[in-house]
């Protein structure tokens, strides 16, 4: 008698979200089974990796980032173009760090100017990230959304304190939205409900469940992603079916393991390689948990992850 392979049946489907316009637009999501369980259902679209670019040079940076980006710091438009043309980037994520009120405190109009320049330099999809301070992001992302009108960007991150402003700006300019919650799937569902109550379409939302670096809470992020995906697929919970974005670049490059030099920790090996590996390992874990969009920094790490995806999507 033939052995019958047990397969899980799912009732839900991950929403598809398209970012960008024209030939270079990218669509993520669409899975009807857990990540890479193509034997149980549709695997959906290939996850998308976006290169992080910054609107001003960082104060200090780990070796791997410095090696890759030193020549591009200070000119985000040129940097974005380099990612597109030289690295075959599928998307870029512009982080408006200069708007941080505790830093340079650049205004919304400066941010809008940067967004325009970057968009003029590329035709791949753009993710626009604020400085992650709720009140300021409300102002900055509104201006950025206006400046990016018609380019179908993904903007964020919308949180409890600023979601109304950002959602309104996204709707009126035709953008998609990142809904952020701090490692809490109940709150993730809540922010999606609140967004839909403002009239925002659930199909235009991407969930950011909070990224954590390997060794710094990665397993918590993993569980939250799993729980969200299970609610969407198994319980067919419409509020938990948006694709997920993991902002790895914002967490990986802050940890000791990617920063401590060989003079301090010779037994840990080459610091640049260490950084690359750290980001790549974190990224692959997030993909197996269920991430659809990754924001990453190291080109070598991105290449390694793309190669892994080639295998996983076969």
């Amino acid at each position: 008698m033939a052995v019958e392979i047990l397969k899980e049946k799912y009732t839900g489907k991950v929403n598809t979200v398209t970012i960008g316009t024209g030939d270079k637009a990218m669509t993520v999501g669409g899975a009807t089974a857990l990540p890479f369980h193509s034997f149980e259902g549709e695997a959906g679209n290939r996850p998308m990796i976006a290169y992080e670019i910054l609107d001003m040079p960082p104060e200090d940076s780990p070796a791997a980032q410095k090696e890759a980006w030193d020549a591009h710091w200070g000119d985000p438009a040129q940097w974005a173009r380099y990612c597109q043309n030289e690295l075959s980037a599928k998307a870029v994520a512009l982080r408006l760090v200069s708007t941080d009120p505790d830093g340079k405190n650049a205004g919304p109009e400066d941010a809008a100017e940067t967004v325009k320049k970057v968009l003029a330099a590329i035709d791949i999809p753009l993710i626009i990230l604020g400085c992650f301070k709720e009140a300021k992001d409300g102002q900055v992302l509104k201006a950025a959304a206006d400046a990016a009108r018609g380019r179908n960007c993904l903007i964020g991150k919308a949180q409890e304190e600023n979601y109304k402003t950002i959602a309104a700006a996204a709707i009126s300019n035709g953008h998609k939205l990142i809904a952020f919650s701090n490692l809490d799937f109940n709150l993730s569902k809540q922010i999606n409900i609140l967004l839909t109550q403002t009239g925002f379409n659930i199909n235009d939302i991407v969930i950011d469940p909070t990224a954590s670096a390997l060794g710094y809470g990665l397993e918590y992020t993993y569980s939250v992603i799993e729980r969200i995906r299970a609610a969407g697929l198994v319980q067919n919970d419409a509020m938990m079916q948006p694709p997920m974005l993991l902002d790895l670049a914002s967490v990986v490059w802050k940890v000791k393991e990617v920063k401590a030099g060989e003079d301090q920790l010779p037994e840990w090996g080459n610091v640049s390689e260490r950084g690359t590996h750290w980001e790549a390992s974190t990224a692959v874990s997030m993909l197996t948990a269920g991430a659809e969009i990754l924001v990453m920094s190291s080109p070598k790490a991105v290449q390694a992850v793309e190669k892994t995806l080639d295998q996983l999507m076969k």
Partner: protein
Amino acid sequence: MLLIGERINVITKVQREAMKNRDPKPIQEMAVKQVKAGANMLDINIGPAEDDGPELMDWIVKTIQEVAQVPLCLDTTNLAAIKAGLKAHNNQWGRAVINSTSGETVRLNTFMPVAAEFQCDIIGLCLSGSGLPADANDRCAIAVDIMTKADEVGLPLDHIYLDPLVLMLNGNQEHAQHCIHAVEMFQTLNDPPMKSVVGLSNIANTAPASMKGILTAVFFQMLRDAGLTAAIIDTLEKDFMEVVQTRNPKMVYRSDHVEKTERVIRGEIMYAHSFLEV
């Protein structure tokens, strides 16, 4: 169903001041109000009362029983205060209850002998020293430790109320169904069945004020259907008491809301503060 009124509690300002100043009036008023509303026991939470625990408990037990003819549930971690309360307690309306021991060895060794000495009742909280119980089986394993200790010190098992440890739905959703299942399982641990109690309001902790009513009412009814014998509750909540009377949350809340809340408690729909709105 034993309804234990929760409103005499050191965390509320009026009661705290009254305890501090030995002012009988607010405490007696609150006691009478709760009994009139349907409480057949009153929880007396004096906090740790490190300075004057025994003296305070002695005073408050006598003060309350002057006006409220019900037994009391002595809620403190202060062992000397518990003893003083038990000495002062008038048993003519029923046995006093110690609130509580857990399954931790230290607490079992501290509180269980006192319960045996006074032959009063005791709440056994299903919490051990090794973190939260994972499921209903874990809760039962701790319950058995509690029952074993009672047997060892000579406290009859019908003096124990097993508490499955209600956690807030927001963030601990799966524990709601574990609690319901545990209440069912507790009844199989002995013949006659073990009694059970819950601190009900925990289920709605951190939920918006507008959600607390329906969450507690629906959860209460589900626990009751599972065989719950006692609950520490707010008897002054009119909507809740109507559910207690009618045994039907749909008499108070919209049917579809009750059904959705049941599904959330069973873990079939993920909790979010606004889950009723989708």
